[in-house]
């Protein structure tokens, strides 16, 4: 109950972590099944339909329900602490964002047991995703599930933007903000401007499927390429929503374990902004082969390659930070160090793909699969591992085992390169993406076997990580405030895990790397910016949970509103939109409750603060 009603950002972070971890596990299982199917030519382990469902759900789950929530988990756990705030700007919305994400994800995954998962690929290209090619409810689960989950993401993004703009501790100007906070800020801005586009796209597709509208239906005058534009105007920025937080994490971990300040801090900030900006200009590099014409292709090709410049700046700054530093290869730093070359390789194949004529060759082959896994797994997932190992003691008050951590790192990264490095060659040799089997003696056999073995090795790495988490959870919570001893930012100045009010007194920030600066000046902690006084806390509430349940019911109701049921009661309830209305009633009713009964919150008194 405590967990369902909480509005504390630190607990919501943990909720995001468990939920994201769960979906990541499901997505990983799906990946393993795909790889088993592809282990040898003409395999009959899966049939074509199941394979299509698996790749669709794997991609969708990983991106929207696996890694995004883990990113949000870290942001929630860390951002208020890093900027010296007692909470996010809107604790209620924070909880609402989590619950809508979770119920959207549940709805999407219900498709497995309710008559067929989506099968049109995670990009849901029309007409494949239209009713003509995809007649089960699979794609409806996709459109409506993602719609609901996307709502949660949007809410989270707005919340972080407001938090970072208004809740920074005194003295923390924007140019004194830690890089992870910067990354969160820019990422949230991208979310704000990219997600509404996919919201519209999903609505249009839903209308095409459920109300027989004609947006993408050529026979009715519609245009399938329109879907691709809308999808990628969202979809390309989405990959920066994923990778910028990883950049932020790496920029925290490397200075800490090099005992040096981040090289070129301001160029890092501007590179981040530039990447976000360019990220919106390049969507059509996913559409070179749709026939946009040579002019459009050339423009999008060049603008895509431009992104390599700010990205290169970042890579060199990390290297220069390590250069001449007192580098310690703890588990977080191992992951950070492994990130740099791996992500760079993904970037190089990205530039190759950005060349429009070359893309005609690479398009829809395993070369593309290799490229984006180098970026998302070799970049983002390694970054998330770095961040999780780095902040785990702050989140849970317990240090993860270094030995097991190193085992995780080596099995995972070796498995990763085994899996995906060979896929570059598979792609160049012509193995197609999204095809459930291949013929023997095309020289695909051995490389696919290697790839599958690598995937299993990555799975082993994940299991070692879970064992580490399990064993750690049984040890006493005795992590010190600054467990890595070289902490530079504000989160390391308060107990691990932090009390629910975070800071007894808001700290005064006197420079970049606020804590490090005080340490260098010989101080033990931060100078407070205010006297000890009562702290106002928001009260816990069940309403966000109820609102999300309502949306979930309404979504289900709408999805089945055109179905025929064997029982007349069911037909009555669904076909007359009664279920939909009921769901909306729960949601709007909860909103009304929220509006009618003010939440005054409560106070923690100074005596209580001192008592601890």
């Amino acid at each position: 109950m405590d967990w369902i009603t909480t509005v504390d950002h630190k607990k919501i972070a943990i909720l995001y972590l468990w939920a994201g971890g769960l979906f990541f596990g499901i997505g990983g299982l799906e990946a393993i099944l795909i790889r088993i199917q592809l282990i040898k030519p003409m395999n009959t382990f899966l049939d074509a339909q199941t394979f299509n469902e698996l790749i669709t759900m794997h991609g969708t789950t990983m991106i929207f329900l696996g890694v995004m929530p883990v990113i949000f988990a870290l942001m929630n756990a860390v951002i208020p602490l890093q900027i010296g705030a007692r909470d996010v700007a809107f604790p209620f919305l924070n909880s609402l964002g989590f619950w809508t994400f979770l119920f959207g994800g549940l709805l999407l995954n219900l498709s497995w047991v309710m008559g067929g998962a989506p099968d049109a690929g995670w990009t849901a290209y029309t007409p494949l995703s239209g009713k003509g090619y995809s007649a089960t409810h699979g794609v409806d689960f996709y459109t409506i599930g993602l719609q609901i989950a996307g709502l949660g993401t949007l809410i989270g993004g707005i919340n972080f933007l407001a938090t970072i703009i208004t809740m920074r501790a005194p003295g923390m100007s924007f140019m004194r903000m830690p890089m992870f906070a910067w990354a969160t800020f820019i990422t949230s801005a991208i979310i704000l401007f990219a997600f509404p586009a996919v919201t519209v796209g999903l609505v249009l597709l839903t209308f095409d499927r459920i109300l027989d509208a004609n947006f993408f239906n050529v026979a009715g005058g519609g245009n399938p390429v329109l879907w691709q534009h809308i999808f990628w105007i969202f979809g390309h920025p989405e990959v920066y929503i994923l990778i910028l937080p990883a950049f932020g994490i790496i920029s925290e971990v490397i200075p800490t374990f090099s005992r040096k300040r981040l090289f070129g801090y301001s160029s890092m900030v501007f590179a981040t902004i530039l990447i976000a900006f360019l990220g919106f200009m390049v969507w059509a590099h996913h559409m070179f082969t749709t026939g946009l014409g040579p002019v459009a292709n050339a423009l999008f090709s060049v603008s895509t390659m431009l992104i390599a410049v700010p990205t290169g700046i970042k890579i060199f700054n990390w290297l220069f930070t390590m250069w001449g530093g007192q580098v310690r290869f703890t588990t977080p730093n191992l992951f950070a160090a492994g990130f740099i070359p791996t992500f760079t390789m993904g970037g190089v194949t990205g530039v190759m793909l950005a060349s429009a004529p070359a893309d005609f060759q690479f398009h829809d082959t395993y070369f593309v699969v290799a490229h984006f896994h180098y970026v998302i797994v070799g970049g983002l997932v390694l970054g998330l591992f770095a961040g999780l190992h780095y902040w785990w003691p702050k989140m849970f008050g317990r240090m993860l085992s270094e030995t097991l951590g190193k085992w995780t790192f080596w099995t995972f990264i070796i498995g990763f390169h085994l899996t995906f490095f060979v896929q570059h060659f598979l792609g160049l040799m012509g193995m197609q993406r999204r095809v459930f089997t291949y013929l023997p003696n095309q020289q695909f056999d051995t490389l696919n076997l290697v790839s599958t073995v690598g995937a299993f090795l990555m799975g082993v790495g994940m299991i070692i990580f879970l064992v580490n988490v399990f064993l750690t959870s049984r040890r006493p919570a005795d992590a010190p405030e600054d467990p890595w001893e070289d902490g530079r930012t504000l989160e390391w100045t308060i107990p691990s895990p932090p009390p629910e009010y975070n800071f007894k007194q808001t700290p005064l920030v006197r420079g970049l790397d606020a804590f490090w600066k005080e340490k260098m000046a010989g101080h033990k902690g931060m100078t407070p910016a205010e006297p000890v006084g009562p702290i106002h806390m928001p009260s816990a509430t069940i309403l966000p949970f109820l609102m999300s349940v309502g949306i979930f019911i309404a979504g289900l109701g709408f999805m089945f509103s055109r179905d025929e049921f064997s029982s007349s009661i069911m037909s009555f309830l669904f076909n007359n939109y009664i279920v939909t209305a009921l769901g909306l009633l729960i949601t709007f009713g909860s909103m009304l409750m929220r509006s009618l009964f003010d939440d005054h919150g409560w106070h923690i008194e100074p005596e209580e603060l001192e008592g601890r």
Partner: protein
Amino acid sequence: MTTAHAEAADGTFPHEPEKATLEGRNKVLAFWLFLGGEAVLFGTLFATFLALRNQTNEGPSAAELFHLPLVAAATLLLLVSSLTSVFAIQAMHRGNVAQLRNWLLVTVLLGLAFLILEIYEFSVYVRHEEFGMTTSAFSSAFYTLVGFHGAHVAFGILWIAVLIGQLLHKGLTVVTAPKIYVSAMYWHFIDVVWVFIFTVVYLLGKVG
């Protein structure tokens, strides 16, 4: 860390009550951000409409369909309602609760009148012109764009109505003021969107 209520009760009611507390300022800021997202949302809908507006699939075209006087009347109602919502905020800044309530009420009623005209318009298209959601890509795009706006109006009406109730119940405080202010921002926004709809959908549709 005083709570909102303590400040409101001590008699010195601030001139801009919506910005008197951190919560209030956060709310206004976040709402600006939200409107940024809404702008992208409507932008995408407009782009879709522009891409599909000539795809009539042998159904009625814009020039055959639209009846400008009706739409102009609806436009007038909505524009005036924006003005009355400005009056409401001005009354709020003067601390005049009765005027605030009345202007909000007028705003809601004008919005309601707009919505009724729109429903009437749609029903004419559907019943007499055989122009429904499924007719053509143009019709789908039309109903989705204009209907989305209509849904925003409907939500705004409900929202402001609840706020009026809250105002009667709790009075004007630094808690209720930001909500009212933000709802007025919302109302202006959907008004601006309507100006674009009027131009891009109706005028452009009539001209060619």
